[in-house]
């Protein structure tokens, strides 16, 4: 379908999407916390290598930073525009 109804639907979808973005921003630290605690579960495993855990943690860290960067940019767009240095 085309024409008039498309506008509102599009807007609503956008607002809805932003709401979910905020939900993601709220859930991100919880996901992170759970994932950070994961190495504990393999603590007793003699096969667990410290180097592997180290790499796992740093990759997780980098992912958190990347998602946070994306989110903060999207959430910043959402706040009322004010001109500033950045």
């Amino acid at each position, binding site marked *: 379908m085309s024409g008039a109804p498309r506008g509102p639907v599009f807007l609503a979808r956008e607002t809805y999407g932003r709401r979910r973005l905020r939900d993601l921003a709220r859930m991100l630290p919880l996901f992170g916390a759970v994932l950070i605690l994961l190495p504990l579960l393999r603590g007793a495993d003699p096969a667990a290598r410290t180097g592997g855990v*180290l790499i796992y943690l740093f990759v997780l860290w980098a992912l958190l930073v990347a998602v946070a*960067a994306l989110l*903060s940019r999207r959430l910043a767009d959402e706040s009322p525009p004010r001109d500033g240095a950045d």
Partner: protein
Amino acid sequence: MVSFNLLVAVALAYVAFLFLIAFAAERRAEQGRDAWMRSSTIYTLSLSIYCTAWTFYGAVGYAARSGLEYLTIYLGPTLVMVGWWWVLRKLVRIGRTHRITSIADLISSRFGKSTALGVIVTLLAVVGTTPYIALQLQSVTFSFSVFAEAAGREWQGTELTVAGLWVAAGLAIFTILFGTRNLDANERHHGIVIAIAVEAVVKLCALLAVGIFVVWGLAGGVRETLALIDASPIAAWKPSGSRWVALTFVSAAAIICLPRMFQVLVVENSDERHLGTASWAFPLYLFAMSLFVVPIAVVGLDRLPAGANPDLFVLTLPLAERREGLAMLSFLGGLSSATSMVIVATIALATMVSNHIVVPAWLSARSDGAMVSGDVRRVVVMARRLSILGVLALGYLYFRLSGGGAALAAIGLISFTGLVQVLPALIGGIFWRGATRWGAAAGLLTGFAVWAWTLFLPSFGEGNLMSATLMAQGPFGIGWLRPYGLLGLTTLDPVVHAILWSLLLNGAVFFLASILTFPTPLERLQGAQFVNVFEHSPGPRAWSTRSAGAEDLLVMSQRIIGASEAQALFQRAARRQGKEGYLPDVTPAFVEALERELSGSVGAATAHAMIGQITEGASVSVEDLIAVADEAAQIMEYSARLEEKSREQERTARALREANAKLTALSIQKDAFLSQISHELRTPMTSIRSFSELLRDGGIGPEGQARYAGIIHDEALRLTRLLDDLLDLAVLENGQVTLNRQEGRLSDLLDRAIAAAGAEGLAVRRNRAREAAVALETDLDRLAQVFINLIANVGKYCAAPRPELRIEVLEVGGRTAVDFIDNGSGIAPEDTELIFEKFSRLTDQGTAGGAGLGLAICREIMARLGGAIGYQPGRGGAAFRVTLPAREALAAE
């Protein structure tokens, strides 16, 4: 080989460079060219004071001792930053809305601007931060000693303490110079923030440089490094679940609760959007800082002699590899980490101490309060400078006491655990409206006490503050109170044990005390504002408006924020109210804005107390409400009076209009009366004139003469009668009539009247006995005149073939009335109003011969006599009721 003197020279040059940068930044800020200083990059870099010398040197040592556990210290803050939408966003908004100056100020503000809570948090912060400052002094002196050692001179204890003293003194000077120039903490310390940002870059570069050198220079690449890790003692590390969770949690809480982190995160924040950038950029910074920690530790353990202190690998590795330049950079990185932390922590603590302890104490010590002469501004600045010296002195003292022996990481964790005790009150305060100041105080004190008992006091070493027996057996042999084994939990790691118990008891006491106590109104108001900071517009706090003089407030404000600033502020406020000059009206809005402004300088509780001293009353009191109600009542009364007045005027206007209408009507009546009179007089005069002319001309028989003379006589009589009537009416209307009072009987008077009326052929029906019973005492002649007129009228106007008059006597309302009723056609209802008017003959039948004055005269007579005459409709014919005057009324006249 780097000579020690060269090292000192480089260190001094570096510090001088920082001075210059800070100075230039302050200059630019004064000129208003400071937009770039408020960028999100600077904000993120300033957050890097989280990475102190504990990170720079200590992380490697930590990794060498405890494997990957050091990562918890950086992963915790990462989670908080990434989850900024939860807590940090709210904290920053609250901090900006309420112009919060420190974490003590936040807690104090939230719980009704409680001074006591401010003091508690301040003391906690000072005690908790002191070991941390000592840690920085220790790391800087250690790094000096490393170079001294490399230069071939082993440092002894005295040299270490002397160096520590010099470092502390230098930091004090720098902090005082740049930290106390602006009194308003919310005006932000540009110089210091820029210096910290530069130091953040230097320490990151230094650590990365050492890391790159170690991985690619010494180990030979990433794969080799990983192989080294697997071969090193670190590979044997197995994560301890309790420590991993507890340390992640504590470091996550620490980034909010540490006074210095609160300072850079909340107080120095100039734009909320910077938080969004920092949410990923700061974790990235932490990531970079932590990246090479394990490689450095592994290579250090591999290459350096077995007894080498792993806390100093970052320095000793380059030195051992004869990379003096790199070692120097690394030294500067360590110096940067230590100095930036000490400067910010000291400023944060000094602000808290001066705002929550010194100034309130000074204010209450002066009985005359905030209104005395003497500059509060000077007092505040002095208090802050002294606090800076005091805090650094305490840090130095702890450094001396602890002997510089304990591992860096251990001291850092002790400090963290102590400062995190603010967490329940802080989080509870901004998310739970039910939190009360009693709950916050009780929780804080409990947590503080448990922390001191289980971690802080034992940290001085066995036998120093706590004896070995106490540690082993508990106080007085009470086993379940052992510092490392509360309630018998002896198997836990001491740090985890302390974190668990202190926060558990702290939170529980906070919660229980909060639900058992009732908050003050101001607390509830602040609570609602803090918890719902995103929904509420700032500031429903109300001041009583009347007692505070604008001038008093100006005098006080000048002493806090400076004369020109205060005057500008007042002038702006006055202009906003549309007034000229410096003194705006003291509206609640103005007082509130002023309080916020002042709280930026001296903290919310103090500002509130100072304004309170002038405005008298901490908030809206019952008296104020009564005063407001009184005012409202006065206004209502006034408006009621106005309304009454306008109603009165309306009434007057209506009366005037009516009078005017009456006058107009009267004038019309007068005109009509004159024209009637002239008409009535002219008719007989015309016939008299014409018949007298006929007689004069003669030629008329004697019979005609007699007839004409008769007509002239009749007309002259009629004229006389008319003039008599007019005269009579004029006399009656002017009230000049003199009444001739007589006594008589109604029956006799009616006999006389019927006889006088001369109405032949008129049948009169009477009840003579009833009439005879009525005794009269009035002007009988006048009354008879009325009766005669009425009887004569029947004779003249009754159209019935056999006219008949009924005269009835009756009692009406206690008075005697006489009705005269004929059997004619009566008077049309619309004419009944007119018959008593002058010249109101309804049907001029000619024969009547009256001028229409009769009934008018009757009405006047009855009014004079004190009686009345009226027409009675619906009685069969024309019916008039004459109400006789009361005997008393006449007697009274």
